[in-house]
């Protein structure tokens, strides 16, 4: 059983937020997807059923409080320092990109930015935080696994996971990576694969999940480097990448794909046709790097996964 990640993060939160969370029911606590802290704004919790709870001045989280509790810039900055274990400098590289990773949780930060010669150089003042609580939902890629079981791995080929932000791409990839490395049932046999995972933002790896798995990880390095490294040295069956399409990694993926390596990757979008409008992604689709698309969405608090063939859109 995976320990709720809230237990790790609570000690870093301002006292009234952690106290407010403490007062929630166990069910509500389990449903927390995001914790948002804002200077001069409302502090909120997003639940997996679509509800948003706000911190009231009375110290509890409710849907429509009479008055909202607000924080100062100093409170948010202090929380950032706390989240960095009192060593902000050691997180400077990730803070430049706008996030901190803590116990596999990605914490997005906003505030007064700075730039040197037009290049962003982190923040001098923090005004908002978004703490995303990672999950491991063993059943979230059942549709895909049964599709693979029915048609076989070769037919499924490379897999692209498409969804708008917050619909569970990372959770899906995490579960898929674990399932592939542990072994999945294909008619007549159980096959496990050598899975290499590029965890650029250190949010795919959860020790509770991969502690007894067989996957290989590279943390905090650019995808382009990871793909080259895995291809050259690790002999993978699958390489898993989160959020491709922005880093110019298409050529590297294409090169490795021609060497017989399958890719499982995620991409922001609403549907396959939406993703096809990105030139780098079109290149990958046209070269059959991805044959199967999993389109994720959330309706009425329910996660929906639709498995599609990419060739139908070309």
């Amino acid at each position, binding site marked *: 059983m995976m320990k709720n990640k809230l237990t790790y993060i609570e*000690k870093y939160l301002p006292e009234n937020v952690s106290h407010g969370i403490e007062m929630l029911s166990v069910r509500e606590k389990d449903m927390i997807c995001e914790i948002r802290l804002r200077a001069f704004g409302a502090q909120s919790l997003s639940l997996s059923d679509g509800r948003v709870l706000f911190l009231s001045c009375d110290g509890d989280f409710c849907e429509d409080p009479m008055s909202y509790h607000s924080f100062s810039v100093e409170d948010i900055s*202090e929380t950032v*320092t*706390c989240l*960095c*274990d*009192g*060593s*902000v*400098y*050691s997180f*400077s590289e990730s*803070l430049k990109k706008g996030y901190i990773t803590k116990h596999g949780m990605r914490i997005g930060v906003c505030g007064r930015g700075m730039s040197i010669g037009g290049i962003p150089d*982190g923040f*001098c003042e923090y005004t908002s935080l978004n703490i995303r609580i990672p999950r491991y939902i063993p059943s979230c890629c059942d549709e895909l696994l049964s599709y693979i079981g029915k048609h076989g791995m070769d037919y499924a080929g490379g897999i692209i996971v498409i969804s708008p932000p917050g619909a569970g791409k990372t959770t899906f990839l995490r579960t898929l990576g674990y399932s592939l490395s542990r072994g999945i049932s294909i008619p007549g046999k159980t096959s496990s694969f050598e899975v290499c995972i590029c965890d650029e933002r250190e949010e795919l790896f959860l020790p509770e999940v991969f502690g007894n798995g067989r996957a290989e990880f590279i943390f905090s390095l650019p995808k382009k480097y990871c793909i080259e490294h895995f291809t050259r040295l690790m002999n993978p069956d699958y390489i898993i990448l989160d959020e491709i399409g922005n880093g110019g990694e298409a050529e590297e993926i294409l090169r490795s794909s021609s060497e017989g390596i399958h890719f499982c990757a995620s991409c922001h979008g609403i549907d396959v046709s939406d993703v096809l409008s990105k030139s780098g992604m079109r290149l990958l689709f046209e070269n059959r790097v991805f044959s199967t698309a999993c389109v994720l969405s959330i309706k009425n608090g329910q996660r929906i996964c639709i498995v599609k063939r990419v060739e139908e859109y070309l």
Partner: protein
Amino acid sequence: MIRVVGVMLLSLSVILIGKRRAYELLLCERFENSLLRLMIFAEQKIETQNMKLCDIYEAFSDEFLEKSGFLCLLRQQKNEDALSSCIKKFDKRLYVGERFGELLSEFSLALGKCRNRESCCELCKKYIAYLHNEKENEGAKRKEQAAMASKLSVIFGVFVALLVL
């Protein structure tokens, strides 16, 4: 007989007070040396490994700070300004010069909040230089004071004995 024993006890306590003061002054020297060593160690670890402060405190070893319990307390601090709260908690058991203590607290409060490795190393270097100067200036005075306290206590002890007897 009782009077002689009383006088001896009195002069002994006067001597001991002086010796204690001399010992405290020498302790200052050792504390300041060890704390400076900690800062130099931190600066190196941050520069070469971008190490977090909590890991630096774990990795650092110093017999004197270990024995005094300062390092143990420092490692237990889980808040963002561990060094400064440790200094506060250690309070009178931390024998450092007043100015040295102020500079150290100032430094420890700013250290964790540095935005990047470069500014952190710069801050370390700056404060190491300040504290080193402070230690050098105070060190010579302190040695003299320790010797003086030691000598004076003996003289006073003997004087008290002679006076009462």
